[in-house]
């Protein structure tokens, strides 16, 4: 045993590397992320991203104030901000039948859109990840289904709208089906791609260590493919959110998109812009949340 110890206590070469890299300095899995300088925690670097938007808003304010832009084309920023305030905090006028409310209805619209998004997105993950693994891991499954998946994913979500309305009618079913279709294909394609690229040596090592064949998907393929799967999940989340507005073309009375279509009918540009900003902010927050939730799972693959 003395011989076992000898090279390990020697303070030179490889073993000094060991002492230099004291375990204390290692970010433990699940511990704080070792951020690169460009990461969001690196000082105030993220403020830089606000410079261009702020300049654009300033230019917009100047152009509106000088009367260069008709308020019927683009109302001044103050008015849009005011509309946003009323959308969020205005006194909720009891809505009349057939009328999509705006004043104080922000919470209701956002909640309706979020519900559609989350329900359909979870369904898309439930279908997309297993289907993607099937395509990535089984040549049979790939030959059988890949052409169909490739063809279907070429159809834009808007092109599904008529058939969706015909099948599900006006209502929640068609809205959710469209969000599902928007979200599912990126998940399928990314999962199939990532799982088909898992290095053979990892699978062979797992087999030689006694991992049963039926456990390989869960123990090796899924963890190894997870960084790629997460990328697909992020794309699917964003594309699903973009499809929410298409889903809300199906005669919804609640939802951010429904509000925007009502605002267009009433020629309320400020309200349309509030809807667009709501989409942008929620989409961004959703992606940040998903990244925060998945980061601990794929930290091992950080560059």
């Amino acid at each position: 045993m003395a011989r076992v110890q000898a090279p390990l206590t020697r303070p030179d070469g490889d073993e000094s590397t060991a002492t230099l890299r004291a375990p204390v300095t290692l970010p433990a899995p699940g511990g704080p992320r070792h951020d690169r300088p460009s990461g969001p925690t690196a000082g105030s670097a993220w403020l830089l991203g606000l410079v261009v938007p702020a300049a654009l808003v300033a230019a917009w304010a100047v152009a509106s104030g000088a009367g260069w832009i008709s308020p019927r084309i683009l109302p001044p920023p103050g008015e849009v901000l005011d509309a946003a305030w009323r959308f969020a905090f205005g006194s909720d006028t009891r809505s009349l039948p057939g009328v999509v409310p705006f004043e104080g209805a922000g919470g209701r619209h956002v909640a309706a859109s979020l519900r559609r998004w989350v329900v359909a997105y979870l369904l898309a993950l439930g279908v997309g990840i297993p289907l993607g693994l099937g395509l990535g891991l089984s040549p049979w499954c790939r030959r059988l289904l890949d052409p169909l998946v490739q063809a279907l994913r070429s159809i834009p979500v808007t092109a599904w709208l008529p058939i969706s309305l015909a099948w599900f009618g006006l209502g929640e079913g068609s809205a959710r089906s469209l969000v599902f279709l928007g979200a599912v294909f990126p998940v399928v394609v990314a999962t199939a791609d990532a799982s088909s690229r898992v290095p053979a040596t990892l699978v062979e090592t797992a087999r030689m260590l006694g991992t049963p064949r039926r456990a390989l998907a869960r123990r090796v393929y899924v963890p190894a493919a997870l960084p790629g799967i997460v990328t697909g999940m992020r794309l699917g989340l964003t594309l699903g959110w973009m499809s929410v507005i298409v889903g809300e073309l199906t005669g919804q009375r609640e939802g951010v998109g429904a509000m925007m279509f009502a605002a267009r009918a009433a020629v309320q540009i400020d309200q349309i812009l509030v809807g667009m900003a709501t989409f942008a902010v929620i989409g961004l927050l959703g992606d940040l949340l998903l990244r925060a939730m998945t980061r601990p799972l794929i930290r091992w693959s950080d560059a």
Partner: protein
Amino acid sequence: MSSALAVDRLRRSFGPVEVIAGISLDVPDETVVAVLGPSGCGKSTLLRLLAGLDEPDGGTILERGRKVVGPSPLRPMVAQGATLFPWATVRANLEWGPRMLGRPDPAAVADELLEATGLTGFAAALPRQLSGGMRQRAAIAQVLAVQPPLLLLDEPFGALDAQTRLRMHEWLRSLLAARPTSVLLVTHDVDEALLLADRLVLLSSRPATIAFELDVGLGDDRGRATLVDPRFVALKADVLDRVLAG
């Protein structure tokens, strides 16, 4: 006499290219056999066949009298480059085999191997946080955790610098001395073969056949000093001549 592995007239071709042309060799219990040969001669192909990761076109591979079919924890292979699971901690990597095989107390097995590999302080680290030498030790420890009667090593230290490699040779000798494990080591490094092996098998260039066999006979106490031992130097000159002659 019982053999950890008995290979008889093994053949393997890829399309029209014959890679292994009738190799017979024996790995007796608790011996280290080094297979030495020029690059591209089919050493890795041979090892994959023995590991059960590939099927021969002809000949037999017997493992203690039983025919080899498919990969098995009885003769795991450590391939070139690290084969650790990159998302799992060093400890989880070492516990992987014992856990999968339902062995008692995988944590204790891992503790012992962490100690023997000098990685106790790195149990919670991920493979990418280790240096090349540490990663290679962990990869060997990972397969030793299933207590295999035979270990297959494919150029295990090929990617390391010369000094680290020498340390790894000394480390591996001490590690194996405490275990009843036979080793079949594939390498192109003559020093490595003569430092580690009890028996040396030299392959011809492709298609690979056995060109020459040799009992190393340098004793059990081999290390950095062996490199300047006249017997080692003479052996090395002889083996190098044969390797370079092809």
